[in-house]
């Protein structure tokens, strides 16, 4: 027997068991090797890179300097990330911590949870203000755009998907055909779809989006080339007349980013609808029958049976959608117009650009580690909040 197995230390294990072990390790080896080299090792190496000065070639060890130049202010970053983690703590206090207690103690626990949630909100916004004052503006703005992208696309696609799924669930003829058509955008190669969207939402007057606007008697738009925020594009004249000036976060995303959001909705609505359909199939029919006997209308049934029983699926899709927006890359990269500067550059695009366009490898590594931390917190949040309840059956 070769000395590669740990069996050496335990002489009592029989030869056949050792052969079994060796077979197991050999079977796992090819897959584990590939995943370890290209999936796990890179994380460690990204951290290693982020601790050096690294522009194309490796330079001196600089400690946490790259991180500092991204977050700007340590206390700000601490408040921001601490605030995010506090949300999890607040949820724990609200739901789990005092589950065994009754009456006043449980109420106090819930109040404490609410207080912590409030505190986390304050910490996040305060931390953000400190960070944006000194930090890497491109990256932080990229994060803001990612949040716009998430809040702009995820709720819309979920509501649309729920409507589609509910309609499809009524045993209509052609259900399979509709399901197939709605799912199609999700499997379409993103490069090709984004190339098509680039043409549809081109600033040229003869392209489809502008043709439709003209047909409706509305002014044509710059779409993907429009860097002004939508509030300005839509209500610019009105806001000027009222003397309101929206700036920063509250001015909203640029029209170019809204076009990217439209793409996101187009891609994921069908996917969400398919998952919702599965969830609808899980709701026992007897509930509806009982409700109908009690005289509940269809709307009441939807409101009091369908929506609450689907809520785990909704939560699942929401968090999955937000994690997706933090990772979104291909369609944004293809749709971004060269002369819009960085109107649609979400966090992952900024990272790629720091590396590919500016050749600042170490800064890109630091940015990617920070993005990873955010995605990790979101994933933990998902596990914490919905992990046990979603599909627990």
């Amino acid at each position, binding site marked *: 027997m070769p000395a590669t197995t740990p069996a050496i230390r335990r002489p009592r294990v029989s030869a056949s068991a050792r052969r079994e072990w060796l077979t197991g390790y050999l079977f796992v080896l090819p897959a584990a090797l590939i*995943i370890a080299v*290209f999936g796990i090792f890179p*994380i460690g190496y990204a951290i290693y890179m982020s601790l050096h000065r690294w522009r194309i070639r490796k330079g001196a060890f600089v400690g946490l300097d790259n991180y500092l130049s991204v977050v700007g202010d340590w206390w700000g970053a601490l408040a921001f990330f601490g605030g995010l983690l506090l949300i999890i703590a607040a949820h724990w206090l609200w739901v789990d911590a005092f589950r065994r207690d009754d009456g006043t103690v449980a109420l106090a626990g819930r109040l404490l949870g609410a207080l912590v949630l409030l505190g986390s909100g304050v910490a996040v916004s305060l931390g953000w203000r400190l960070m944006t004052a000194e930090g890497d503006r491109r990256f932080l703005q990229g994060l803001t755009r990612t949040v716009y992208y998430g809040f702009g696309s995820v709720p819309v696609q979920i509501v649309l998907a729920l409507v589609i799924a509910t309609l499809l669930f009524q045993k209509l003829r052609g259900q*399979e055909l509709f399901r197939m058509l709605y799912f199609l955008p999700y499997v379409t190669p993103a490069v*090709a779809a984004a190339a098509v969207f680039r043409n549809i939402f081109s600033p040229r007057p003869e392209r489809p989006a502008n043709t439709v606007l003209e047909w409706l008697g509305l002014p044509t738009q710059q779409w993907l080339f429009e860097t002004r925020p939508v509030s300005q594009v839509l209500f610019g004249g009105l806001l000027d007349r009222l003397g309101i000036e929206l700036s920063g976060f509250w001015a909203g995303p640029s029209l170019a980013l809204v076009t990217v959001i439209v793409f996101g909705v187009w*891609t994921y609505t069908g996917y969400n609808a398919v998952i919702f359909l*599965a969830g609808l199939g899980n709701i026992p029919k007897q509930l509806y029958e009982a409700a109908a006997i009690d005289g509940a209308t269809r709307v009441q049934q939807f409101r009091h049976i369908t929506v609450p029983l689907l809520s785990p699926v909704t939560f699942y899709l929401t968090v999955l959608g937000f994690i997706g927006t933090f990772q979104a890359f291909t369609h944004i990269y293809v749709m971004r117009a060269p002369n819009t500067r960085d109107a649609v550059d979400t966090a992952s695009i900024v990272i790629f650009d720091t590396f590919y366009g500016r050749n600042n490898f170490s800064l890109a590594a630091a940015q990617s580690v920070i993005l990873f931390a955010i995605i990790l917190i979101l994933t933990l949040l998902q596990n914490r909040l919905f992990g046990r309840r979603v599909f627990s059956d």
Partner: protein
Amino acid sequence: MTEPAAVRRQAPAEPVRAKAAAAREPYEFRLAHLPAYLALVVGAVVSMSPFLYMVSTSLMTLGETINRRLLPATPQWVNYRTAWSEADFALYFRNSVIITALVIVGVLVTCTLAGYAFARIRFPGRETIFLVLLATLMIPGTVTFLPNFLMVRGEVIPWGSWLNTLPALTVPFMSTAFVIFLFRQFFLGIPHELYDAARIDGAGHLRFLTAVVVPMSKPVIMTATLLTFVSSWNEFLWPLLVTTTPKWRPLGVGLYTFISEAGPQTHLLMAGAVITVLPVLLVYFLTQKQFTEGIATSGLKG
């Protein structure tokens, strides 16, 4: 983490199937269904419109693309020939086919072996290794692409530069934790008695796996193949980084470089887009049900 992410992703598989079976009850048209149909048709037209625009424009002349035509006067099939031969889409297509085929074979081999070991062979550290591999599902490509790029350039491990070679485009994708997980779940359902019987006949794990388990596992192999096909065909960021010449450039990257080179030649660009999309849609239409279920459960596009 109490439960690996993939375990939850897997969960909706059953209801999708159950739903499809329930839909085959006799249909009875009611007037009340009319608004629902209307809404569904409108939604379907909106969601199909980019495809219609793509196909229609790909058959136009250059003049028609700038004159707001909805449809070409006579379909210009020649656009496809031009895109295919002059814009190098033939080469990109060939590359995509080779890359995807190699990745599929690699994934099937490595993940069947690993999935089987995690389901059936006892060895120390089995659960730990499995969980560590599963945890990689949470890692975004944005974190790994940079170190991986340096790695294939031979700057981390001195194995020389792989840029513009086939291994750079295929090897990193030849195993994924999700497919291992799929196989493991399926293999766990195969009765132990079968292995005991095979054992008495003198078969080891490898013989049992290839002669008994694999022939029984057609559905899961099909799902894994479809999943890998789509994700490999649609891959963009990585091939963009590691192909600086057209030699091994796949369709997606080829289409992207064509966008900047094509300028106003929208009709050719759209023909290229159709060439890129067509194989995926074809496979989708042919294997519709397995496809939707397999991909819906995997959360393919992060």
